[in-house]
């Protein structure tokens, strides 16, 4: 029989600790596949965040560094500047990248660090039990917005990829979603381009991925896909928001 789909060597054999239906696993797999397909496993230094994906160093087959809350991009910067020959990526949640580590993210983007950030947005703090995130939607009930997020007192959800399009050193910015097989294929395409941007030394590349949190959203995994599609997608800019240009303004 011809294998159509088998496990990538870019991931270890360790089973994921994520809740049933959590789409972190899909994103891990896409990254693992690309590390293998692009022949990067032995050349990569990944940086893990704090949050649900804070143990992801156990899953990726490459060398990994565990960062502190929000500091993954700074750690990645330090590693990349020390070893410019290595492929360096960060894997971060929305709290990590858009709240406690917002300054690090935007500053690394402004410097055009040759690193790739994968930003997983599930509109909630999953690891700690479902508190409000910088990306939580207006009206969304979380354990720290029990009556729903209201803009008056808690402000508005932050669309980080949209902001990053305004930062010169951020060369590739995409916002994708892993809520369907088609979406997953597009997400992989975006990640591949982001990786290539780094390999080509063009600047900072950033891929935001809308992801689910069935447990803390209080829905089953299939309902979670629908919640993502109907509630989250309308609130966040989607697609390849910024692509590198060559002289003459054409996309490469």
């Amino acid at each position, binding site marked *: 029989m011809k294998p159509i789909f088998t496990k990538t060597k870019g991931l*270890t054999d360790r089973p994921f600790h994520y809740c049933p239906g959590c789409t972190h696993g899909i994103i891990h797999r896409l990254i693992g596949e690309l590390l293998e397909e692009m022949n990067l*496993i*032995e*050349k*990569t*230094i990944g*940086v*893990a965040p704090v949050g649900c994906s*804070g*143990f992801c*160093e*156990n899953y990726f*087959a*490459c*060398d*990994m*560094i*565990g*960062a*502190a809350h929000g*500091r993954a991009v*700074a*750690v*990645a*910067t*330090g*590693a*990349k*500047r*020390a*070893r410019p020959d*290595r492929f360096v990526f960060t894997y971060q949640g929305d709290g990590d990248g858009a709240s406690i580590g917002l*300054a*690090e993210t935007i*500053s690394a983007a402004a410097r055009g660090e040759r690193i790739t950030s994968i930003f997983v947005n599930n509109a909630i703090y999953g690891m700690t039990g479902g508190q409000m995130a910088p990306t939580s939607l207006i009206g969304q009930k979380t354990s720290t917005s029990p009556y729903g997020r209201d803009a008056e007192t808690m402000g508005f959800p932050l669309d980080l990829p949209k902001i990053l399009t305004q930062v010169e050193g951020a060369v590739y910015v995409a916002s994708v979603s892993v809520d369907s097989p088609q979406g997953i294929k597009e997400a992989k395409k975006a990640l591949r381009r982001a990786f290539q941007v780094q390999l080509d030394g063009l600047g900072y590349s950033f891929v935001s991925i809308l992801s689910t949190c069935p447990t803390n959203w209080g829905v089953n995994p299939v309902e979670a896909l629908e919640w993502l599609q109907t509630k989250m997608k309308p609130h966040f800019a989607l697609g390849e928001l910024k692509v590198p240009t060559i002289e003459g303004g054409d996309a490469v």
Partner: protein
Amino acid sequence: MALLMKGNEAIAEAAIQAGCRLFYGYPITPSTEIPEYMAKKMKAVGGTYLQAESEVAAIYMVYGAGAVGERVMTGTSSPGFSLMQEGLSFLFAAEIPCVIVDVMRGGPGLGGLGPTQADYFQLTKGGGHGDYHAIVLAPSSVQEMVDLTKESFDLADCYRNLVIIAVDGILGQMMEPVEFPPFKGRKLEPKDWAASGAEGRPKNNVISYYLTPELGESENIRWGDKMSMMKEAEQRFVEYEMEDADYAFVAFGTSARITETAIDILREEGIKVGLFRPVTLWPFPEKGLTARLDQIKGWMSIELSAGQMIEDLKLVVNGKAPVGFHGRMGGMTPEPEDVVTAFKEQLLGGVQG
């Protein structure tokens, strides 16, 4: 040939000579000559200077470079050092070798730019969370800043531990003649633990957490053993006029220099006093102090703070002799004559010279 150099610049040059090719930092007075020197010189030696967006980012950039196995340094001053405390705790747990310079200035708060030693607690007791210690070196001359900086990278690599060079604003800003003699380093193990890309070997993870309390305890015990080892092997101090001393001052850095002059004044009056100068603030040189306990009739801690090191001194003296204190704060420094007067008042029962 001797060069006349500022302490901050001498530290930066010594670091480069020790093989440090990465400096991540954020400028803050009175440590700014360190990043400035690095910005100028790193390029020439094929290294990297990077100005971080904050001290928080800077210390984690240090983490990244240390985790991939490279020699790396940052330098800052007290408020910036405060911002780095979270990172220091993480770097300790991840066992990242690195060198941090704290050129202390007045506090608390934004404080002033004058010299102080009021970061002593933060430096030696661990300003971040958890049970940890950095090796803390306290030079008292520009030459010693060079010698200790060169050695600090070996110490960091040897123990996979943080090494902090603690000076005050005066030492950072002061020019003194210095020489850069060749440095014979320690024999060091290859960094096979580093997360530098898993070419031809199993993958490495460099992390700072543990999943279970059992593992948490065993890791803490292992780190504790490492700290005991450093405590045993790395205590350092320098003595001045201690051989026949009846009374002894304990002081480090600039206050030790001031105290030396006070000792000269007292010696001219025939009073037998000496100086015990800790060179390592952590590990505190307990062994050297203990060896003098039977000899010394009274101790006195001289600090540019409200009295922080005196707590460590009292733990060692343990009631065997009186312990006096004199200090200035907020960026002021005592005159040697002030030290003399305080000594006479506190330890000679108010006898005026």
